[in-house]
């Protein structure tokens, strides 16, 4: 059943030898040791597993790895470039937009995806875009503030694409 899938993760080309139906989340965490992407529910309801596929936010827990062969996958580990944080990461620190931090990678990836397509989202657009990501600690207002900070900082942050 297992076969080789070619992946492009955080700009690196690599192959994994797994059943193509295996979730991308499982492959990232167990095979590639990229554990910044989290399991929260396994049914795409909490967003802890959010990654970017070609710049679009995607729930890795319900994405079979076979479907994303050769596409550009970006995880939380791929945002930092040469020791410099992505503006959204930086904004989360500035706004102290976390408590336990477990939802934070998924929130940041969703925020990056939003700013990729809409550099100046309104508060309403932020809420709508982020609404499928859950923060059980309830830091939502700070996360909104962080995305606004990131948006202001770069006049709209581009990033999360490995091109």
């Amino acid at each position, binding site marked *: 059943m297992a076969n080789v899938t070619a992946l492009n993760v955080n700009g690196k080309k690599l192959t994994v030898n797994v*059943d193509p139906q*295996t979730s991308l989340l*499982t492959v990232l*965490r*167990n095979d590639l*040791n*990229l*554990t*910044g*992407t*989290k*399991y*929260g*529910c*396994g*049914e795409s*309801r*909490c967003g*802890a597993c959010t990654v970017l596929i070609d710049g679009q936010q995607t729930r890795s827990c319900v994405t079979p790895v076979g479907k994303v062969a050769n596409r550009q996958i970006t*995880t*939380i*580990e791929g*945002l*930092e470039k040469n020791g410099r*944080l992505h503006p959204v*990461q*930086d904004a*989360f*620190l*500035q706004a*102290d937009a*976390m*408590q*336990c*931090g*477990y*939802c*934070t*990678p998924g929130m*940041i990836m969703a925020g990056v995806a939003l700013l990729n397509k809409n550099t100046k989202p309104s508060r309403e657009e*932020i*809420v*709508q875009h*982020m*609404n*499928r*990501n*859950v*923060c*059980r*600690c*309830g*830091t*939502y*207002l*700070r*996360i*909104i503030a962080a995305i606004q900070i990131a948006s202001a900082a770069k006049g709209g942050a581009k990033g999360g694409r490995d091109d």
Partner: protein
Amino acid sequence: MTEIPEVERYELDEEPAYNFNFDRRQFLKAFSGGIALLVPLTNLIAQQPEQQGESGRGGFNRDMPQEIGAWIHIEPDGSIVAYTGKVEFGQNIRTSLTQAVAEELHVPLAMIRLVMGDTDLTPFDMGTFGSLTTPMMAPQLRKAAAAARETLISIVAQQWQVEPSTVRVVDAKFVNHDTTKSMTFADVAKGVKLVKTIPADVKTTPVAQWTVAGTSIPKVDGRDYVTGKHKYTSDMKRDGMLYGAVVRPSRINATFEARVSTPANMPGVQVVEDGNFLGVAGVDQTTATRAAKQIVARWKEPPPQPGNAELFDYLRKNATPGRARNVGSIADGLAAADKKLEQTYTIAYIAHAPLEPRAAVAEYVDNKLTVWTGTQRPFGVRGELADALHIPVSRIRVIVPDTGSGYGGKHSGECAIEAARLAIATKKPVKVVWSREEEFTWAYFRPAGLIDVKSGVKNDGTITAWEFHNYNSGTSAIQTRYDIPNQQIQFHEVQSPLRQGSYRGLAATANHFARETHIDELGTVLNMDPVEFRLKNLKDERMRAVLEAAANRFGWRAGRQKTGPTRGAGVAVGFEKGGYVATCAEVSVDSAGKVKLERVVEAFECGAIVNPKHLENQIEGAVVQAIGGALFEQIEFANGSILNPRFSRYRLPRFSDVPPIEVVLVNRKDLASAGAGETPIVGLAPAVGNAVFAATGKRLRSLPLG
């Protein structure tokens, strides 16, 4: 199990419920050099900060306490490490405790490392709960840090042959204004081997002079979280590690009888049977999970169990009354009343739903069991492991990596025991991470409750009688702060149909919901404004202060709770665990009865504020979490099955549910700091229920309200 040398039963029995075994002998074995300042355990188990007993021995002494509660170590290389059995779950105590230490040592935060929740390295701690870290642990670590600074200064002064009062710490260096000499922490600690107990009279920085504490320091290791580098238990990997999965019973309270069939072809899978436990370990998670699903077992079915439909009837009929607290006479109070009221309130079971489910990694090497797991009670879980596996606690180490939240839901060690059973049987490290469905089904819940309230009030607004019966949900905040001459307050214990336990605020949410809704109903009977009616019956100045602060910021207009055609405003006050809270909420209700929160103002006072931004963050988070329990969270269950064990069936608060939240911090620098992780959760549900009444005239007496 045969691999484990059996221990005599008495070896296990010897361990007391609270195991104070980080004693001086153990400490001296571990202590390699440098300077250590110890906090005696007795300082930390005193019930109230003001009652903290010191040893009674003035000045520095060389006697070590028999049992150590926390300690600070200036290592020979000058590193500063504080050891505490507390754990980090998102309350940001790693940051606030670091602030306290930095303040007293006069060093940058980055010089300080905290070792938390490791049963081999940190002293015994009952657990991280009850909002006790800030009032109990922070002042003790602060004292230890202050004593460490004074000790270091006296060593420096001796070397320089100057008065200690002429030596100061500036930018992490010891300096003397008469000379140009300076020494680093490493210069002083190198070659020294000194252990001291914190003296009774050690002076710490008064709150008014705080420069590090009292400020909004960001999460000290925040960068590890925004980059995904932080390793939660569920992220860990050990060499040769297997992945575990558990075959779950057919329903809650069913017990294992026999394995009926195991698929013949399961390469890389080991099946482990041990008493009531049936599980597998596999080479990867997918393999293990698949194998566990394919195994067929027979379970002994328990007798029929109650479900939602009959829950509250069941609670009332199966209760054992506890001792009542009686003040005056209810009969007299009711006789003196002009108006009487009797109502019943109900509260559903809800789930903690921490985003990181229970997880554990266990390994058994050289007869020693090490378990990494996210628990709020590392020492308690060590005891659970000892009991379950018949291994003495001296051969068990529990380590708690900073964890993906708990809210009172991770006191227990089920997952740790499962991982340990599999690790012992397979002789390999094993990781077990619960699925969301397992977390919903096999953990425990915030108790459901039924509360009867009977009261009497005079036409002038004076409450004369207050009778309050809580069935099952608990006693936290069951007492009222209103000044009522005749009271009967009673808790009735019930064998809960579902496993229940601690939850942020415990029963304080249920008791405040019933009390503050009933108070509102009394005000309505009298046609009195809710704020005015509360103030009339409250003497407690701190309670009055938060109520007035919240009402002012909200722009509360007396007698004008209906704020629009479909809108209303409500208020509630509360007190628990040393913190005072007042919540004002405005809601709108659509024609279908759907409640939307429009605005929340919450005033909170917990003594002197340690970190304003993190305090605000805790309060906002508590309000958001409270929205779920107030409006939609509810466990549905029937005959031992949880019917909504998934996020698609159990709604959590989301971005769109969160209204603007204004936090009013009342800073009482003259009072000791109390914890703030819990009490801010209690005011929202009654404030929202009262606002719904103002908007619609319909009184809601059950949580969730929606």
